């Protein structure tokens, strides 16, 4: 939920990067951090994971300038992607204002993308937020692997998968939280 501070003329929002393990959520934050000017970004915080997987979350605060006199401060978070870190994902989703779902274009990750999207819908529903109404960006990541040894899914297939969960809902194959 956004915080509107009339005393400081500031609006704070929380955006969470979501997706399956190794899809590139932390890399997204690292890229944003490396490409933004010093005066608009805070420190990037990554909780030590003893490896290249996110155990808890990464965090980056950005000041995006003014809209109608209000400073817009956006806080970017990532979640751990592995299935068994669901409790942590739920914690990070608390108070979320928008989600970036990072879809992995690798063919071998197709099933995990769908599972993660369904997991997002379920965890949002537990917070009283519908995936249909929350501001949601879907990013098809790793498109630059096209033409390499790693086999990637065509955009059309990813688009089809994106719509799959809604289709399953219509068929009544998924629980009521969708």
């Amino acid at each position, binding site marked *: 939920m956004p915080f509107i501070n009339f005393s400081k003329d500031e609006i704070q929002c929380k955006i969470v990067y979501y997706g399956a393990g190794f899809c590139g959520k932390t890399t997204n934050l690292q890229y944003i951090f490396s490409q933004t000017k010093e005066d608009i970004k805070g*420190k990037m915080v990554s909780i030590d994971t003893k490896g290249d997987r996110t155990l808890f979350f990464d965090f980056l605060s950005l000041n995006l300038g003014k809209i109608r006199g209000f400073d817009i401060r956006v806080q970017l978070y990532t979640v751990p992607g592995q299935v068994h870190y669901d409790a942590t994902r739920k914690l990070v989703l608390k108070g979320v204002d928008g989600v970036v779902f990072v879809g992995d274009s690798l063919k071998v990750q197709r099933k995990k993308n769908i599972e993660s999207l369904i997991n997002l819908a379920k965890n949002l529903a537990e917070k009283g937020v519908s995936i249909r109404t929350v501001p949601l960006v879907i990013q098809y990541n790793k498109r630059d692997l096209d033409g390499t040894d790693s086999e990637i899914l065509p955009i059309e297939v990813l688009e089809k998968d994106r719509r799959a969960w809604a289709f399953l809902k219509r068929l009544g194959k998924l629980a009521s939280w969708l």
Partner: protein
Amino acid sequence: MNIILITQKDLEKIDFCLNRMVSSSLAQSVLLIDRSGQLIAHHGNAPAIDMSSLSALTAANFGATAEIAKILGEEEFTLLFHKGRNENVYFSAIGEHVILVTLFDDRTSLGVIRLQIGKIIDELSKILSTIFEKKKVLTE
């Protein structure tokens, strides 16, 4: 969508409480953050601290220990204390939405900090519940 609105008047009341807390306990600074990691207000003398990161990590820390509490059959741990060589941090839950973070060094003691927090906590709770009640009205 739920929106939290903090007016100038709300913030003045919060500042008054936090100011009293700092001056009576000799704490370095106090922060009031919401459980999703947003900073609501801070008071005191901590210019070099990255407040945004501290708020995000505090909320996560509190959330994680709440899960530990549930595993142990407790509803929640309402306070946490981290002791360092020079700096200490004391976290206390205020209602279901907010956490008070107190940073202090060896000029004061944990006992004094706890005593002074006890004196302001009821007043802060009232102010904050008014703010979060407004949220409900806005979203209805």
